[in-house]
């Protein structure tokens, strides 16, 4: 069973009288353990596709199976729990909560795991222990008590990656993860994704940057709302 299976995904945005078809029937399968880059120019619909793959947005038409689950037959709150269990997000603008320190930011998703899942996933290590370990591994072990405002862009993105990993999700979904970083920090972030992939994680990176896409094993090009693999 494929991890991600999209069938005939269409997305139409309505703006008054105007209808814009952003995705025009996308069929896509991603297996467990792949490192995929979704590439395309801005306005190509790649972000919309990422939001649909991340269960944050619903398509106008089409089917999406995540780990065999018919995603869009679920209600909003069930989708939320599905995200908590399966998906770790990394965003272009980090989205760290300003009033929480590094460690607490990483721990936010833990509260949203269903109780049984939480027990299962943190059987060996407590969430705090795991968060500290992840941050240490990402070179943030000395900055657990720092507030986001005290960090550089590269450091913020590393905290965001630790947050994406804390619940041990099936998929890491990254939207332009290097978009706001200098080239050295961007490179370091991509190296981290590569490392995670080598450990067996499924990583999907959405980008317009060929250099970023070059880290992936498979590049899916989106143009005018269609796949050009």
């Amino acid at each position, binding site marked *: 069973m494929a991890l991600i299976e999209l069938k005939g995904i269409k997305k139409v945005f309505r703006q008054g009288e105007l209808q814009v078809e952003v995705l025009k029937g996308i069929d896509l399968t991603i297996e467990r353990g792949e490192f995929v880059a979704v590439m395309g120019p801005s306005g190509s619909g790649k972000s919309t596709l990422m939001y649909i793959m991340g269960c944050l947005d619903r398509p106008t038409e089409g089917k999406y199976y995540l780990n065999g689950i018919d995603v869009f037959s679920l209600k909003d709150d069930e989708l939320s729990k599905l995200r908590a269990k399966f998906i770790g*997000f990394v965003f272009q603008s980090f989205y760290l*909560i*300003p009033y*929480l320190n590094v460690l*607490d930011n990483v721990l936010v998703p833990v*509260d949203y795991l269903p109780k049984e899942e939480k027990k299962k996933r943190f059987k060996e290590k407590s969430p705090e222990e795991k968060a500290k370990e992840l941050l240490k591994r990402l070179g943030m072990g000395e900055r657990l008590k720092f507030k986001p405002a005290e960090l550089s862009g590269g450091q913020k993105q590393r905290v965001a990656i630790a947050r994406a990993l804390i619940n041990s999700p099936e998929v890491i979904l990254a939207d332009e993860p290097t978009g706001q970083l200098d080239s050295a920090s961007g490179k370091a972030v991509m190296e981290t994704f590569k490392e995670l992939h080598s450990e067996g994680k499924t990583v999907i990176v959405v980008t317009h940057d060929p250099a970023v896409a070059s880290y992936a094993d498979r590049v899916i090009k989106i143009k005018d709302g269609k796949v050009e693999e």
Partner: protein
Amino acid sequence: MRPKEVLLSLLHNKVRTAFAVLGILFGVVSLVLIVAAIEGSSQEAKKVIEKLGPDSVLIISGSIKKGPRSSFQNLTLKDVNEIGRLEGIFALTYGIVKPTMISSSESSKFSSVFGVGKNWLVSWNYQIEEGRGFTEKDFKELRKVAVVGHDVSDFFWPGQSPVGKVILVGKTPLRVIGVYKKKGKTPNGHNLDNRVFIPYGVFDKTVEKTYEKVSVIRFRVLNPKEYDEIVKETREILLRNHRPDEFIVITPVVVKKFLSMLSATLAFFLGIASATALVVGGFVLSSIFYVNAYVREWEVGLRKALGATKREIVGLFLGEALAVAVISSLIGSLLGAAAIKVILPGLKIPVVYPIEAFIIAPIFAVLVSLFAVYFPAKRASEFEPVKALRKKA
């Protein structure tokens, strides 16, 4: 959402939190105050009734419409004698009063001079501190003797015992035989210690001709079961001798009614004030949290992306509302306690700190806060994650 996160969020935006707390704070203070005021005035009412005696009947000249007028003496010794023939009563007494100039050889002052019947001092609970009270002989032989209050004795003979001294009431010299213990002031501010008591017959001869009029009659009932019947009989006697608007019969039931009417009025006005304060506080909190929800729209989007359900988003905001309510309640209770001490004496209400006040006010604060914040919280929980995430600058 952990409690720590709630506090960190509140601390992060101190101005917002301060306004939210202030909004609820006033409601808490006024609620604490109103509960204490009601409790204090009901205690006061109980005290007044205890003072009056639950078994006593008081008749004064005047009418309910025109108010008691001690200067219009409608009651007479005939009433006293007829009431005295009723069975099942005791400690019957009567009196007449006139503000009169009293003097010694050196100085003079105005004082309330009472011509009183037997039992007066005991019946009204004047306790003799020095000397003695009146005896049968004082009344029978119309002895020119007086029992005085502390204000009188301290004025004429500071630091000395007044017993045996002579005062002039009008032009008549009277010998002081006793001083009663300090009684302070009535709730209306009448000084109870600036009084001179003399036998009724002596009053008639020295202060003013009484024509057998009296201003107050008081007696007590032996068996509480007969109380209503005796009051009814008393009224019948008085109605035979007077028009209905010439006298007022005061019983503890009447006093209770009057006092509870007063405290109900108080509760009503203070209640409106504190309800208004809380409702306004609720609106303030609600609008602060509406703004808060939109300012943090991206945070809501993020939390939803990370797996938060609508309920968990509502819980996030309600958690903050609860914290605001708790902080407001703590500060408000302290300020309320201070307000009790400062404001209640001005309203002539005894200072009390009823435990209910410090329970009811926080409960209301929590309910109002949760109710006020529920709507913005609900609105926030319905933000669509994709749109919400785009709101971050």
